[in-house]
C-alpha cells in the first residue's frame, strides 16, 4: 500500500457516517543526532547569528525510520495550498485565512483508531473506516 492510495480516500465512521476524505498522512520521523565531525561546521555555527549558511535557516534533519502516526481527515480534498490549517503561518494575508476557513473541521485520527482499509472493486480506490470511540484530535503540527 502507498500513501497515494490513502490520500483522498473516503473516510467512514464506525456507524457508516461519511466523515470526509484523507487529506494527509502524518508520519513521525526518528531524528538521529548527528556527530559534529564535519570540518568547517563549527565556523558556520558561529556565523549563524549574522549570516547563516545555506539551509541552516530551514529545518533539515538526519532521519531514521518513518512511522505512520495518524490520518488527517478533512471535509474537503486538500486543495492547492494545503497545510495552513496545521501551521501558524498567517501571511500573506488573505491566502492562509481563506484556506484555513475552507478547511475548518479538519481533524487528526490516530492510526491505531483506524479499523479497516478496504480496497473498492473496480478503480482501485480505497476506503477508510474508523474504530468505535475514535477521537478527533486537533490537526496542528507540533
Amino acid at each position: 500500500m502507498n500513501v497515494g492510495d490513502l490520500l483522498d480516500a473516503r473516510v467512514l465512521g464506525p456507524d457508516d457516517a461519511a466523515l470526509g476524505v484523507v487529506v494527509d498522512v502524518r508520519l513521525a520521523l526518528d531524528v538521529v543526532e548527528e556527530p559534529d565531525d564535519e570540518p568547517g561546521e563549527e565556523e558556520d555555527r558561529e556565523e549563524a547569528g549574522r549570516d547563516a549558511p545555506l539551509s541552516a535557516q530551514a529545518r533539515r534533519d538526519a532521519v531514521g525510520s518513518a512511522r505512520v502516526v495518524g490520518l488527517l481527515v478533512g471535509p474537503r480534498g486538500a486543495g492547492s495550498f494545503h497545510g495552513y490549517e496545521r501551521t501558524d503561518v498567517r501571511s500573506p494575508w488573505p491566502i492562509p485565512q481563506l484556506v484555513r476557513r475552507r478547511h475548518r473541521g479538519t481533524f487528526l485520527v490516530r492510526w491505531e483508531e483506524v479499523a479497516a482499509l478496504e480496497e473498492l472493486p473496480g478503480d482501485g480506490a480505497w476506503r477508510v473506516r474508523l474504530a468505535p470511540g475514535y477521537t478527533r484530535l486537533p490537526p496542528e503540527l507540533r
Partner: protein
Amino acid sequence: MKKLLGVALGILTAIGGFVDIGDLVTNAVVGSRFGMSLAWVVVLGVVGIVLFASMSGRVAAVSGRATFEIIRERLGPRAAGANLLASFAINLLTLTAEVGGIALALHLASSVEPRLWIPVAALAVWLVLWRVKFQVMENVAGLLGLLLVGFAIALFQLGPDWGELLRQAVPPSPPGTEHPASYWYYAVALFGAAMTPYEVFFFSSGAVEERWTAKDLGTNRLNVLLGFPLGGLLSLAIAACAAVVLLPAGIEVSSLSQIVLPVAQAGGVLLLAVVILGIVAATFGAALETALSSGYTLAQYLGWSWGKFRRPARAARFHLTMIVALLVAVGILMTSVDPVAVTEMSVVFSAVALPLTYVPILVVANDPAYMGRHVNGRVANALGMVYLVIVVVAAVAAIPLMIATGAGS
C-alpha cells in the same frame, strides 16, 4: 568592476524581460504610436519584477530550491503541469524569436540573409550552453547587452523637447489617433513582458548555479535593484527615441531595422555599430536565458539533474531538453515565420503561467519551514498581493484584448 560583475545575473535576466527581440520592437512600436504615454507600464512592470525576482532569489539562496521546484511542490502535479506547459510554450516561442532575432541583428550588420544566420546563431547558442561557464556567460552576454545604452545616448544627442516627452508620460492618456483597446493591449503586452515567468525561473536557477547562500542576500538585492530598473530604462530609451524621430514622421514600426534609425540619426555610424552589437548581445543573452529556462523548468518539474555547473553528462536530460528546444526553434524559423510575431503569441500563454508562477513564490516566501527567519516582511506581502491582483487582471484581459485588436494592429 567586481561589483558590476556581481550583478550580471540580474542584468542578463532583465534583458530577457525588457529588451529581448520582441520587446525591442514592441518598445519602438509603442513609442512610434503612443509616444511616452505607456511609460507608466514599464515602471509598474519594473517594480513588480523587482519584487518577485527578489523573492525567488531569496528563496533560492536560503532554501537552495529554484522556483519551479517550489511550484511543483506547492501546486501539486496537475496545476504545476498546466504551468509547465504554458511556461514551456512561452520559453520555446521566445527562444524561437530570439534565435531569429540574432539572425535579424546579424543581417543588419552584414546584409547576409537572416535565414543563413539562423543555423549559425542556434549553433553558437548551443556551444555556449554546452561549454561555457555560467559566470562567464552571464558576464559577457549581460555586459555587452548593456551597449543598448546607446539608445539613451542617442536620445540625449537628439536633444528632444523633454517637457513634451514628460507631458506624454504624465498623466498617461492614449493619443486621440489610437483606439483605447490598442492602447490597453500594448499596456498588457508590456506588463506581461516585464513580468514574464522565465525571468524568475532563470534568476532563481542562476542563483543556485552560482551557489548563493543566505550570505548572498545582499547580492540578491543588488542584482534586482540594479538589473531590472536598468532594463526598464533601456526600454524607455528605445520608446523615447521612436517617439522623437519616428512618431512625427508618421512611421509605424514593423521591423527591427527601423528602430536603429533614430540612433543613426543621432550618433552616426559609430553609435549605430555600438547599438547593433548591443542588439546582437541582448538577443543572444535572451536566447541563452530562454533556452536555459526551458531546461530548468522541465528538469525541476520532473526532478531531473540540472545545471550548467555540472558536466553535461551529469545533467543529461537537462542538456537534451535544451538541444531539442533549439532544434524545434530552428525548425519553426525555417518556415519563414516572422520572429517578432512569434513573441506576440506568448501573451496568450502568460495568462496561465503568470498567476501559477507568482502565487507559489509568494506563498513559499512566507513559509518558515523554507525560509527560517528570512520570511517576507509586511511591505513585500502587501505589495505582492497587490501585484497578484494586477497580474490576474492583466492575464485575464490579455486574450480578449488580443482578439479584439488583432494583436494591436
